[in-house]
């Protein structure tokens, strides 16, 4: 059996954190939520502390936004895997997130299938 992928959820809205946890619990065997962060600053700190396999990163947050957090994490660990998740749908934001180092972009609202597809693409990319 494969090792569970450890996931850090960065999200300022509690209901979104809850939902992501619920969704990931559906694939309990593969994914394990190891921690939360509610802003970018905390995200970078938590990443350094927990060293998760995957980070889900909201873009619009207080204190430090997601784009900066992605840069901070990638600077610390260029191999970090990050999925940017945002309701901001314009191509500029998507491009900005990908430029900062995000590996996937998930557009709110998304279905559980959308989430797992994105995670699988991410892992395939890593293995490939």
């Amino acid at each position, binding site marked *: 059996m494969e090792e569970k992928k450890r996931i850090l959820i960065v999200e300022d809205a509690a209901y979104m954190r809850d939902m992501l946890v619920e969704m990931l619990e559906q694939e309990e065997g593969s994914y394990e939520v190891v921690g939360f962060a509610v802003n970018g600053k905390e995200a970078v700190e938590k990443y350094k502390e927990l060293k998760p396999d995957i980070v889900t990163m909201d873009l619009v947050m207080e204190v430090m936004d997601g784009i900066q957090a992605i840069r901070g994490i990638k600077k610390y660990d260029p191999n970090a895997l990050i999925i940017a998740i945002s309701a901001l749908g314009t191509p*500029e934001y998507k491009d900005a997130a990908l430029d900062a180092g995000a590996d996937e972009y998930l557009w709110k609202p998304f279905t559980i299938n959308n989430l797992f597809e994105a995670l699988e693409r991410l892992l395939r990319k890593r293995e490939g």
Partner: protein
Amino acid sequence: MIKGLNYKFLILLSTVLACTILAFFVGFIKNETIVYTHFFYVPILLAGVWYRKKAVFIALFLCFVYILVTLFSPHAELYVHIFERSAIFVAVAYVIGLVSEKRAKGEEKLKETKEYLDNIITSSADAIVVVDMDGIVRSWNRAAEDYMGYSAKEVIGTSNKNFFADPGEAEKIMRIVQREGELKNYRTTVLNKDKKPVHISMSAALLKDRNGVPVGTVRVSRDITKEVELEEKIKEERDNLNQILESMDDGVYIVSKDYKVEFMNKVLIDALGYHVGDICYKAFHNRDEPCPRCKNTEVMKGKTVRWEWYSRRNNKTYDLFETPMRNINGTISKLTIFRDISDRKRMEDDLKDAEERYRVIFEHALTALCVIEDGEVVSVANKEFETLSGYSREEIKGKKWIDFIADQDRDRVQNYCVERRKGEAPACCEFKFVSSNGEIKHVNAWIEPIPGADSCIASLLDVTELKRKEDELRETCEKLAELDKMKRDFLNVAYHEMRSPLAPIVGYASMLERCELPDKGKKYLYNIEHSARELEKLINRMLELARIDGKKIELSLEGVYIPEVVAEVVKDIEPEAREKKQVISMAVQEVEIQADRQKIVAIFSNLISNAIKYTPEGGKIDIVVEDRGEDIRAYVADTGIGITEEHLPKIFERFYMVDTSLTRKSGSLGLGLSIVKEYVKLHGGKVWATSEIGKGSKFFFIMPKRQ
């Protein structure tokens, strides 16, 4: 003289004594008492010849002696004879004296005349030479000596042939004098003693003896060397003058006092033909008498005139310059120079016309115009300038240009004027204008240097009102821009905030799908998911429009295969049509265009879902795309309720709703068509629609295949 007198006087006295004695003695011898008085006539005659009228005194003396003698004689009867004879003596003496005196006077005169003539000949400035018929010089006066260098002694008796530069001249002159009897002002050249040529003018006459036989010629000659040289010089100058006149562009002619053409230069001959020798008014004007305006008389009096003459015949105007010219022979001719000034005249007239036209334009221009001299003083202004400045024309004239400019703008405007004159500044300059009552007006000024003068023309447009409105407008625009930005910011935030709550709805619903649900539950779940998707679309459209307004749209162009796009869109929304039992038919030509794929998808998606929405159950929807070479034409037709003509032009406007009740029923905010229009426009195409109420509508667009 005294000796002569004594001598004559003694003879006379002796004669008187002898004759008296003889007269008495003869009587005494004959023993007669008669005195032979006839002897008395001898001394009377002598005295008459020698002493002229004084002979009377001798006669009286003799009478006295005779009377005295007779008085002492005894023959008293003789007394009568005594007085008679005495009277006769005196009378005879007087007559003889008179005759003698007359003769003596004539001789004296003759002698004086001869001396006088000799003096003249000797002292004459002209050479007077007498030559006999053989050509031998017989007389040679002092003047001849002077200019020939030969003395009279040297030449008298020699042939005159030797003196002429051309020896043939001697004979020629003789011939002419013989034939004509005289020769007048004949010019020839002689050689003086130094063999230098001397020009002379000779007059000669034939000398004849008492019987009329010619014996020689007398010749009077004058040295005219200087005159001849002068004449040659004059002739040379005259030739030069003629050459100048010939080569002049202006017409030149010379006429004599009696209107005879003496000279015409080439220009004139070319224009009028050769008329030298003709009478000017006849040749040039076809008149029988001098032209009425002719200035010949004035010029002959020594006046120089200049006047303009218009020739009706060839419709030309000439500038005439006429001046007297003294000829060699002392006569005066009129020199006329005339210049064709028709072109100048016409140009002057044209200029006058143009000036008048420009004056009218200047005066009635709707901008205030003025002329600034030397960058300082205003010299001319038009009506509008009066209105602008509030000064009258008289007040403006001479006013300083700087006085019309508000203090704070003066330096700037003056610099502008200087640079403008150098051609370095832009044409327009804005400044504050001060009018007569101190009111400040904003003007746009165009300052244009007048070529060739130290002045420029300023044209001023009062933009005070315009500027006020512009400011108002700018303020409004700024406010609007701010509002617009606020709106876009709001929409961006609203978009984010509206999508965020959708996330758990869609997310949990998708999780619910994985759960075991009763049939009703499944149906409810489907409805939730459907509504969530609709809501998401609506929010997306709002975002799109916000972005279009913000002009943030950039097309990312790629090759878009139209049949594939249409199929994709139809596949996506077919379930809705199927629900309403509608039939979708497609006639899409195989064509690829260069476009932004997402936008093309949105265009078809909006048009087709609109058609589905507004078409009742069981209707028909046609999708047609034609390849027209340079562009494509597409339309989506429905069998819906149709749109009235009144609404048709407005349906592409944002938030435009044909019918609120319908809108409510169909759940649209009227954004779809607006997005279609914007996207088609972005691709350089256009949209329109046609409709028939109750039958359906057709929505068209055309779009170029290449951007």
